[in-house]
C-alpha cells in the first residue's frame, strides 16, 4: 500500500511537470496564436484587442496562474481556432478517436497474442516462421507509409473504401445506413492500425510463451493429465498475463498519440488531428488541454497497470504477508 501511495505521489509530480512544460513549450515555439487567427491587414489596435480578449497581454506569471487554475478545474476555455469551447471540440472528436483506437488496440492485441501463443506452441514449424516474419514486417514499417499504401491500393486504384473522412457526402439517410457508412469509413484506418500493431504483440507474447512453456510447472500440469487447452491458457499463458496486461494498459496512451498520424492520413475528424491542428495554429487552450488529458491518461494507465499487476499476481498481492 505504501509503495502504491508512493507511485500516486510520483504520478502527481509527473503531472505537475507536464502541466508546466505544456504552458512554456507552446509559448517559446516560434510564431504566435494571433497571427494565425487574424487577417494580416488588421490594425495593431485590433491585434491588441484580440490579445486582451485571450489574456495574452498579461504578464507570463499571471497567464501561468490562470492556466493552472483552468487545467486543474478542467475548464479549458475557448479554442482560438474555432471560438468554440475546447471541451465541445474535444467531445465531438473523441468519439471518433475512441471508435477507432479501442477496437484497434483490442483487435491487434487479441490477434498478436493468439498468433504469439500459436508460434510458441509450434516451434520450428512453418506457423512459427510465418508469425515471426509477419510480426517483424508489421513491427518495422512506418505507420504513414503503410497507411498511404493502403489508401493508394484500396481507396484510389481499387476503390473499395473511401479516401477520407468518417461519413459520405451527403450522409446516407437512416440510422442503420449511417452506421454502416461510418464503419465503412473506419475499416481501412482500423485495418492499418491492427496491421501495424499486431506484430509487436505476436513477437512479445511468442518470446514470453516459449519461456513459460519450458517451465517445470507447465511440464507438471501436463503430467497431471490436464487438457491441452488448460495447460496452455490456465498455466502457461496465465503466468505471463501480468506483463501482458501491463503492456496493454501502457500501450493505450501511445495508441492515442499515434492517432495524430492516422487521423491526418485518413482525414478523420478525431482528437489526434485536432491536437496537431492546435499545435500548428498555436491554439494554446486546445493544445494545452489535449496534452494535459493525454498526460492524465498516461499516468492513469500506469497506475491502473500497477493495481492490475497486484490483482493478477499473487506473489505481488501477498508480498505484505511475509
Amino acid at each position, binding site marked *: 500500500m505504501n509503495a502504491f501511495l508512493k507511485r500516486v505521489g510520483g504520478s502527481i509530480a509527473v503531472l505537475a511537470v507536464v502541466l508546466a512544460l505544456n504552458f512554456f513549450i507552446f509559448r517559446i515555439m516560434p510564431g504566435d496564436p494571433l497571427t494565425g487567427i487574424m487577417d494580416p491587414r488588421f490594425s495593431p489596435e485590433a491585434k491588441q484587442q484580440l490579445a486582451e480578449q485571450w489574456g495574452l497581454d498579461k504578464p507570463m506569471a499571471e497567464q501561468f496562474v490562470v492556466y493552472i487554475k483552468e487545467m486543474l478545474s478542467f475548464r479549458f476555455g475557448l479554442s482560438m481556432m474555432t471560438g468554440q469551447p475546447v471541451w465541445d471540440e474535444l467531445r465531438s472528436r473523441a468519439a471518433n478517436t475512441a471508435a477507432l483506437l479501442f477496437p484497434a488496440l483490442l483487435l491487434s492485441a487479441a490477434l498478436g497474442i493468439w498468433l504469439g501463443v500459436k508460434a510458441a506452441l509450434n516451434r520450428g514449424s512453418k506457423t512459427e516462421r510465418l508469425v515471426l516474419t509477419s510480426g517483424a514486417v508489421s513491427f518495422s514499417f512506418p505507420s504513414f507509409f503503410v497507411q498511404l499504401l493502403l489508401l493508394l491500393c484500396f481507396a484510389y486504384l481499387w476503390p473499395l473504401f473511401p479516401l477520407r473522412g468518417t461519413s459520405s457526402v451527403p450522409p446516407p439517410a437512416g440510422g442503420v445506413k449511417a452506421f454502416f457508412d461510418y464503419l465503412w469509413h473506419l475499416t481501412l484506418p482500423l485495418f492499418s492500425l491492427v496491421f501495424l500493431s499486431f506484430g509487436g504483440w505476436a513477437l512479445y507474447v511468442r518470446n514470453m510463451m516459449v519461456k513459460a512453456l519450458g517451465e*517445470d510447472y507447465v511440464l*507438471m500440469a501436463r*503430467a*497431471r*493429465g490436464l487438457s491441452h487447452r*488448460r495447460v496452455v491458457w490456465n498455466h502457461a499463458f*496465465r503466468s505471463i498475463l501480468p506483463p501482458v496486461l501491463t503492456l496493454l494498459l501502457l500501450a493505450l496512451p501511445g495508441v492515442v498519440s499515434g492517432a495524430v498520424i492516422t487521423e491526418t492520413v485518413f482525414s478523420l475528424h478525431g482528437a489526434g488531428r485536432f491536437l496537431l491542428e492546435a499545435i500548428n495554429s498555436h491554439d494554446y487552450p486546445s493544445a494545452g488541454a489535449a496534452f494535459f488529458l493525454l498526460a492524465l491518461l498516461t499516468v492513469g494507465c500506469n497506475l491502473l497497470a500497477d493495481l492490475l499487476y497486484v490483482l493478477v*499476481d*499473487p506473489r505481488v498481492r501477498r508480498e505484505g504477508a511475509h
Partner: protein
Amino acid sequence: MPMNEKSAIEIRSLSVTYRGGGAEARETRAVRDCSFSVGKGDVVGLAGESGCGKTSVLMAIPRLLPAGTLVSGQIFCGGEELTALGEEELNTRRWRRVALVPQGAMNSFTPHLSIERHITEVLERHMNMPGRERREYAAELLRTVGLESTFLTRYPHELSGGQKQRAALAAALACKPDFLLADEPTTALDVITQKEVLDMIVSLARGRGMGLLLVTHDLPLAAGICDALIVMKDGEILESGPSRDVINSPKNEYTRRLIQAIRVMDGGEGQ
C-alpha cells in the same frame, strides 16, 4: 504378452533416443533396451550417476519427453499398455495411473495458482468430484502429508521447500494412482527434512498399495528404503535385484566402484 497382475508397472525393452535440432540432426541414445517391473506396494530405487538415463526412463513412462524424442518398447500400467494409447487417451490416464513427485518441487507449482487449485483441478479433471467434496478431500490429503488445511489457500511462494514437497506428494496422491514416480524428490532439502519427506513418500506408497519408483543418485540412501535396486550407466541397466544383494555383493564392477566411492565420501570405508 499381458502384464503380470502383481505388477504396478512393467517396462519391456524401453529405449529412448533424443534428436537434436539443426542441420546435423544429431541423435543421442539415452536409454537402451531397459526392462524391469515394480510390484504393487513395492519400492524400487533407480540409481546411477548424472546423465545415466534414469530421468529419461522416468519421463518416458507418462510420455513427457520433449517432442520428437524416439521411444520404443512397451510400458504396462494398471492392466493396460500405455505405449499403445494415443495422446488423448494417455492424457486421461496420467495422474490416475501414474503420478509424479518432481525433482525439487520449487518450480513444479504454477505460481499464480493456490495449493487448493493444484489439487482440485486434477480431481475435477479425473475424478469428476463435486466442488465441495473436492475442497474437503484436498484438505484431507494435506493432513495426510502433515500439512494443515490452512495451506489450501496458500500460494507456492508462501511455502518452504519441505512444505512444497509435501504438498506435491498430496497432489500426487489425489487420484489414487497405481504407480508413483519420484524424481530425486528430496533434492535441495536439508538432511532432516529429506529423511522425513522420503519416509513419508515410502510409507504412503506402501500403505496404499502403489508401486513406487524412486530415482536417485544416492545409492546408500536408496538401499536403506527400497525393496529393490536398479543401477544404470550410459542408458543401460547394469545390475538389479534386492537392495541388500546389490549393496553387499554387487555383481558389476561399476556398481562396486559406485558403492565404494560413496563409502569413501561418507568416511565409512570398510564398514
